[in-house]
């Protein structure tokens, strides 16, 4: 056990940052699950595409970085919408397992697409940032505690983005439609709501958040390649299950908790740091045995 207060504070921020990114991705899983009872396994890869969109907007279209990110958010949202339209919509009334397998297929498709069109080598935002690239390396020093500036930015942007998400879901009409659909699809459509459009919007919203998370991920860890989204995608999925899949608050809580637990465990017990990824799965197994509906999930009763 390693009890160094400087280390613990430093890594608390790290954990918050990683957890926030998990949370941003996890809400995408949980929203789709809430509505369609579908685990969208392509979600991590949609995040990867968000990184590539931003990268190519800056490199090929010569956009300033900030504009490139905005472009990427919209492009990724459209991608999410299209994935639903092309891959999942034809299977709305098919057995759930068919949609699940399609999701896995979609994940492989996007990964391979990225390998073919963007190349499988690592890329980095360093060059695209040009003279601003030092932003990645700047740190704040308070006494002995060193916190990279980018970590703070990521935490702030994550909170801000999550606030906007909650506003959309709980204060707008389309958010109300989303919540209605998650309760009962046929009845909602009887009320004159275009269900497919709302589902498409849900995918777009989740994908936009994934794009934001992806770009921040690629800034904090400046190497990305077509499989970058795989690991965060998996962790975010665990976070969503941990918090209670289908519950928005649960996904956020699960994301932050998972990030903090992961980082704090290797801070306190450095000798097990190479098994970091295993902890996430241990948590998954534990929560599934103790409380299968997750921390904030409701127990659903399935009528046979």
């Amino acid at each position, binding site marked *: 056990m390693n009890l160094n207060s400087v280390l613990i504070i*430093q890594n608390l921020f790290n954990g918050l940052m990683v957890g926030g990114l998990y949370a941003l991705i996890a809400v995408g899983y949980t929203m789709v699950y809430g509505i369609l009872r579908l685990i969208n396994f392509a979600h991590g890869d949609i995040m990867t595409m968000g990184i590539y969109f931003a990268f190519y907007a800056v490199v090929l279209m010569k956009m300033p970085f900030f504009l490139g990110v905005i472009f990427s958010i919209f492009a990724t949202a459209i991608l999410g919408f299209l994935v639903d339209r092309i891959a999942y919509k034809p299977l709305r009334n098919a057995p759930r397992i068919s949609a699940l397998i399609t999701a896995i297929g979609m994940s492989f498709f996007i990964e391979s697409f990225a390998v073919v069109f963007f190349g499988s*080598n690592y890329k980095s935002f360093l060059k695209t940032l040009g003279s601003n690239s030092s932003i990645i390396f700047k*740190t704040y020093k308070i006494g002995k505690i060193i916190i990279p500036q980018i970590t703070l930015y990521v935490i702030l942007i994550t909170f801000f983005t999550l606030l906007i998400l909650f506003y959309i879901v709980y204060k707008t009409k389309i958010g109300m439609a989303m919540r209605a659909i998650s309760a009962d699809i046929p009845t909602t459509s009887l009320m004159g709501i275009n269900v497919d459009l709302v589902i498409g919007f849900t995918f777009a919203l989740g994908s936009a958040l994934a794009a934001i998370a992806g770009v921040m991920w690629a800034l904090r860890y400046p*190497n990305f390649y077509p499989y970058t989204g795989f690991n965060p995608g998996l962790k975010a999925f665990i976070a969503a299950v941990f918090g209670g899949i289908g519950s928005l608050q649960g996904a956020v809580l699960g994301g932050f908790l998972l990030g903090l637990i992961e980082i704090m465990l290797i801070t306190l017990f450095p000798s097990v740091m190479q098994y970091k990824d295993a902890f996430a799965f241990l948590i998954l197994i534990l929560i599934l045995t103790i409380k299968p509906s997750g921390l904030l999930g409701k127990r659903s009763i399935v009528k046979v």
Partner: protein
Amino acid sequence: MKKILIAFLLVFFAFFSFATIKIGVVLPLTGGVSAFGQLVWEGVQLAHEQVLKVLGEEIELVLIDNRSEKTEAANAVSRAIEKEHVLAIVGEVVSGNTLAGGQIAEEKHVPMISPSSTNPLVTDGKKFVSRVCFTDPFQGGALAVFAKENLGLKKVAVFVDIEQDYSVGLTNFFIDTFTKLGGQAKKIYFKSGDQEFSAQITQALSFGADAILVTGYYPEIALVAQQSKMLGFTGKLLAGDGADAPELIQIGGEAVEGLYFTTHYHPDAKVTEKSKEFVDAYFKKYGRKPSTLSALGYDAYMILVDAIKRAGKADSELVAQEIRKTRNFEGATGIINIDENGNAVKSVVIDVVKNGEFAFEAVINPDQIVVK
């Protein structure tokens, strides 16, 4: 008439397809270390262009990707042997994958020649797996000598990638020599694909390391370099030949400036006539200076073809034996001798990253290292 013509064509094609010698090229073209695979493939293609025929038959290259994964490496070798019926295989790049694939080549009695797998176990006890590069006991030793004597380092934190046989081996060989020379070393663990290293780096800082050695591959080396700068580490950075890909600088940027690493070759050190020719031919084809792995890929192909020529017929057992009889072969990376255990005996080159490029720093010859 039509039937006769078709029959004739069929016979012709059948004859034509039998009159080629197939060489499998198993490389990581996608996934974690894809840059390595692509660089080797460039070298192999250049060599293939220069030597298209052996024993009067055309050479056909069969390229198979293994996604930088061990299981896929084994599958790729099986596929090359069972489906494509290759005579021999050039590959794999990283030691863990060559170990996985080499096991299968050994069982099926198909010669395999690795351009760059340095872990001693790769060829250990095998008859069919050889390599055109030095091994890690020597590389680790050379790095330790350089760190202690040239750089005057005393405490080194060694970052070990527990998923890579290469990294685990190189770490042990480095620490062996380094502690014998009077230095102190501490192992700190991570895993391929990790992106967050702050916990590891803070450990290195509390150890009081005056250098961090990352024995893994370029993606993680670049990230460790960046994050260690961020966390206020000011000491030296070291790495093994896993650093030697241009992507190191693309990902690492300023953070990898001043990083020393051991490697096999530097295009500016034109050791033989052949290396000059190689650099020129490579520059003509690809428009840039060759990377180490391209040169090694080139040599692996050339040595294999030379062995086939000496064997006199397309017989895999004979070819495997001939590869290990390679003496004074003039390759792009220097004069190559492969011993009866399938290992090449070569000098270690030390490069340093300077102004965003790999600059030549020193050469350490096998006889210069005396491990007490």
